[in-house]
């Protein structure tokens, strides 16, 4: 399967776990006629129930897959005494379970097969954190960039949302198979790894009908993205030249930042101040320098007064790349953390995928940390970096090339 197609096609569940012939047939069906025959997901309440996103391929699903409305990130640590043998066993078990769950087929230990039968586009993406390499002594296979981000002046990090040895990112159009898959995969790891945190997130189901994603500040979010399906593919996927170990080719990295948003203070900012802070029109997402959402921002435009149209500290300016490689695939989810005392914390699970976070992400993060107007209302409270494993073919398992 070619990389850009991953996640863009839906297959019958029979095509996934059947033999190679069935896979090819289903793939051909899906790529030739399915797109025109199928109704657009989201056009009916049940339109996405049976949706299947292929699991097998050069890359893992859940990265270039258009983000569905529900996600949960699970950070897990290896248990004491676990070695590479046990990690390999876990990866084989997870690969088998994930390949079934995402295909709408109950894993062998599943006692709720009726729930598993409706995956609603479920994807599960597996990553390894820095601690895994420390713990298992796998430094020779560790990507050079795999480390926690350096402390930022704006950070107020809570270790409760810090980096872990393992990451599962689960996404689905329905929260039901999502919860089921999370429980099953966490349970499958018992005796090998234990969750430290679980971070659920949501996006607007209206996106499935083509509407832009808005964060809880009401801002259109995620407008500028690299063309990862084509000319910017090397910004997303680890290639042979940069891989620290051949087993990483086709993998990626994930930076997951939990960003608390001060809704109370944001309420005090008027519309002009809000647009000034981000550098975009709130209604359309277009840059303040004109055009529409997709129009590039003109950072050199000036007002008659001589002041720049886009403030020197506007988010869109600070986030703009200073070099072509300072770009990455953003796949954020909003979150609400409900307290037991009636309070609700609102924020963004900022998820960014890139081939090399130190080279691509860090320079942008530094500029934002040093002077983004949005910092008035936002505080990073969690931060984690993961190496995202390459995908695997049918008959193979995630991480095999790194462990055998």
């Amino acid at each position, binding site marked *: 399967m070619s990389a850009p197609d991953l996640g*863009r*096609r*839906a*297959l*019958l*569940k*029979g*095509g996934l*776990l*059947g*033999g*190679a012939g*069935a896979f090819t*047939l*289903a793939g051909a*069906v*899906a790529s030739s006629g*399915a*797109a025109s*025959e*199928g*109704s*657009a*997901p989201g056009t009916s309440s049940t*339109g*996405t*129930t*049976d*949706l*299947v*996103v292929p699991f097998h391929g050069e890359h893992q699903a859940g990265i270039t897959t*258009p983000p569905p409305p529900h996600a949960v990130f699970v950070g897990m640590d290896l248990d004491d005494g676990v070695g590479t043998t*046990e990690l*390999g*066993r*876990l990866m*084989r*078990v997870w*690969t*088998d379970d994930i390949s079934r769950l995402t295909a*709408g*087929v109950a894993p*062998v*230990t599943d*006692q709720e097969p009726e729930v598993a039968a409706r995956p609603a*586009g479920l994807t599960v993406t597996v990553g390894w954190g820095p601690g895994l390499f420390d713990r298992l002594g796998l430094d020779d296979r560790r990507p050079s960039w795999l480390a926690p981000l350096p402390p930022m002046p704006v950070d107020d990090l809570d270790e409760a949302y810090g980096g872990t040895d393992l990451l599962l990112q689960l996404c689905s159009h329905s929260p039901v198979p999502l919860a089921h898959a999370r429980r099953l995969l966490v*349970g*499958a*790891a*018992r*005796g*090998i790894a234990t969750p430290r945190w679980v971070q659920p997130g949501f996006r607007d189901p209206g996106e499935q009908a083509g509407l832009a994603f808005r964060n809880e500040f009401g801002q259109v979010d995620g407008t500028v993205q690299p063309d990862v399906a084509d000319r910017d593919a090397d910004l997303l996927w680890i290639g042979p030249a940069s891989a620290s170990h051949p087993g990483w080719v086709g993998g990626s990295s994930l930076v997951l930042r939990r960003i608390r948003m001060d809704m109370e203070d944001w309420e005090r900012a008027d519309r002009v101040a809000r647009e000034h802070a981000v550098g975009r029109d709130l209604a359309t997402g277009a840059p303040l320098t004109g055009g529409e959402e997709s129009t590039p921002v003109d950072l050199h435009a000036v007002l008659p007064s001589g002041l720049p149209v886009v403030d020197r500290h506007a988010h869109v300016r600070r986030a703009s790349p200073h070099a072509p490689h300072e770009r990455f695939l953003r796949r954020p989810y909003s979150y609400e953390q409900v307290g037991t005392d009636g309070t609700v914390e609102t924020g963004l699970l900022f998820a960014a995928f890139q081939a090399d976070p130190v080279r691509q992400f860090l320079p942008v993060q530094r500029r934002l940390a040093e002077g983004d107007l949005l910092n008035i209302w936002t505080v990073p409270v969690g931060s984690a970096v993961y190496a995202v494993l390459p995908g*695997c*073919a*049918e*008959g*193979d*398992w995630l991480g*095999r090339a790194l462990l*055998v």
Partner: protein
Amino acid sequence: MPTVPRSALPALTLTIALAMPLTGCGSTSADPTDGSATAADDAALTLEDGWAKATDGPMTGVFGTLTNEGDADLHLVEVRSELAGMAEMHVTVDDGAGGRVMREAEDGFVVPAGGEHALEPGGDHLMLMQLAEPVETGQEVTLVVVDADGGEHEFTVSARAFSGAEEEYAPEQETEDR
């Protein structure tokens, strides 16, 4: 988004393929539940979706779907594994007091020609007892099932963390005393 509901596509038969199309990793078959018969004298019996319950206790169950692809019934009379000092074929029955207990099948299992015999928690299963060591999650467990004609069928399954299958073990002589 050019994804489509599964129902928009023609139905394909769902099979968990036993002979997975391997891509350059022949000895590392990724499906740890992919038990297949390897005994030379009879490859007609397969154990599909086979798995064992991981445990640090003295016994564990093995589950899956026994499928007889041959044209004669297979009467299974014995099971053994190097991991276990003793192994039996078990059925699960009412204990007469609202619970379920498992005990040895009186005459093994018969897998009909072209048919299946399900092994599942709370039902018929293979029981490995007197385990010498813990059976750990993801570990491969190899066992041999012997039919009445002496044909041996070897399966390798992976152990899985599982909280179910907690039925009491009630050897027949004990339940008869009740």
